[in-house]
């Protein structure tokens, strides 16, 4: 069993990442192995627009994932209060951005927000809005699933003790959902960090997220610089996810 798993896992999942990592340090690569190692690609990208692209990506992902978490949680709480048919409509509505190709989502936002009164085209806001729309579906789904698992006895005990619904929400439901909320936020953050197709349709010249730079570098043939950028993107995403998981374990009922 395990050998089969590794035989499949290694070449399909692990090796490509390893190749990217090695390529980011390669001075040239024509045979089976790179011809030499260098830090040149990292020095090169450190002096270009890439640090700005990294900050752009981090800010976009942070704002988009927090907004998605707020909207998704709110919607999931509202959906729980609805009857079955209303809940189905909500589910379908929030599945829409997942079901529709993200290029289409990008295009539709471009069309919708290119004229006053909602002129967002050409601003960083349109990229953040697009990312929020795309990742809210995942926040909605994972918070909704956690809410369905929450034992109604907690809420009812709180109510019988005299707690109003808003007090129950802030003091009981949200604290009990905290692990699921941080997990949902981490998932949204990771998805936003890697988003390319809708971003390509929308990004203004002063707001170029890192995946766009990776694409740009490989597109003009600078494969090794592209690899270095990709490694930076992976490392940044992983670092944030690790930090979030540390907060999570601390927050899980101490």
């Amino acid at each position, binding site marked *: 069993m395990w050998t089969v798993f590794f035989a499949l896992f290694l070449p399909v999942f692990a090796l490509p990442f390893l190749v990217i990592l090695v390529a980011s340090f390669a001075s040239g690569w024509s045979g089976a192995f790179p011809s030499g190692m260098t830090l040149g690609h990292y020095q090169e990208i450190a002096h270009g627009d890439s640090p700005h692209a990294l900050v752009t990506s981090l800010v976009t992902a942070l704002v988009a994932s927090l907004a998605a978490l707020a909207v998704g949680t709110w919607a999931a709480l509202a959906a729980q209060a609805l009857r079955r048919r209303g809940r189905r409509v909500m589910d379908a509505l929030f599945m829409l951005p997942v079901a529709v190709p993200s290029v289409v989502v990008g295009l539709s936002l471009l069309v919708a927000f290119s004229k006053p009164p909602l002129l967002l085209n050409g601003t960083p806001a349109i990229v953040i809005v697009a990312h929020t729309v795309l990742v809210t579906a995942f926040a909605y789904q994972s918070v909704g699933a956690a809410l369905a698992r929450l*034992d109604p*006895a*907690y809420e*009812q*005990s*709180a*109510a*019988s*003790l*005299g*707690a*109003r*619904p808003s*007090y129950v929400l802030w*003091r*009981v439901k949200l*604290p*009990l959902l*905290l692990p699921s909320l941080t997990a949902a936020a981490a998932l949204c953050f990771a998805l936003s960090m890697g988003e390319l197709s809708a971003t390509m349709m929308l990004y203004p010249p002063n707001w170029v997220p890192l995946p766009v730079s990776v694409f740009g570098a490989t597109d003009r043939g600078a494969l090794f610089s592209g690899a270095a950028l990709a490694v930076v993107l992976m490392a940044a995403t992983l670092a944030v996810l690790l930090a979030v998981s540390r907060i999570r374990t601390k927050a899980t*009922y*101490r």
Partner: protein
Amino acid sequence: MGIRFDSVTVRYGDNTVLDSLDLTVEPGEVMALLGPSGSGKTTALRAVAGFVTPASGRVLIGGRDVTALPPYRRGIGMVVQQYALFPHLRVEQNVAFGLKARKVPRARITERVTEALRMTGMEGYARRYPRELSGGQQQRVAIARALAIRPEVLLLDEPLSALDAQLRSGMLAELARLHRELPDVSILYVTHDQIEALTLADRIAVMDRARLRDCGTPQDLYRRPRTEFTASFVGNANLLPVTVDGGAVRFGATELKVPVDGVAPGATATLCVRPHLVGLGEGPNALRGTVAEVQWRGATHRVLVDVDGHQIKADVRELRTPPALGEPVSVHFAAEDAVLLAAGVADG
């Protein structure tokens, strides 16, 4: 404050889970709602708590109609089977929850939390988290949390069924002691366990299939059940189909001398005798049969005797030499230990 159910009916779709319940719990009284699962007893409790809305009828607490009030405005304490302590709060924070939600001043909260923990014997555990406590300790905290808001009505929904047998009898004594300490609190106690109901309750309301079947003091229900359901559910009585014949009744060919007051001659009726009041061997009102099963229960033997196709249960003191299966044997009972239930009253 008492509780009053005024023909309360609860339906889920077409399914009636509580059928026009009329019942009054007096101030300071312990009322047990006893019945098998699906009898509507938990639904009745949830109607008092405000978690189900009656299709018709009213629920009154202390004379006030609360049918339309949301749960958080009813001022009742509730303890459920699975405790439902808030896992992210310490014991003292759990107990303080209702007081904080009601904006009780901080100094008073500390005082009441200490008092509630003292009453339940949990004062040493204030700083613990629920997951650090055993099931019995969690149940005590759940009771402390409900008592801290000083409710005049306490709802207990199968509070002991998640505990093992030994803890259960200890907690039963604790609950009885708590009620002596708080004599003004009315308690509605939902259970399927007749021992809990008989031990704790001032009165028992027996429920079956969405309806109230019987209501009375434990002694009353045990000694003088009014329906077959009560007789078999409370104390697992022997029920024999008989016909009234003059001053006695007939079970098959055997004449049994029992009080027949109030039942017309010639009518069919059900004779109810508790297993522990049935003796083995010859005596008055003897029935002849064969031994169908013998169960050893420590201090007692339960002998099942087959008489004309009816199994009669006899609980007797442990026998040195229990009868063998298939052995012919007689069972008997005293006339004053039998209760005759007229047919028709059976399942009102």
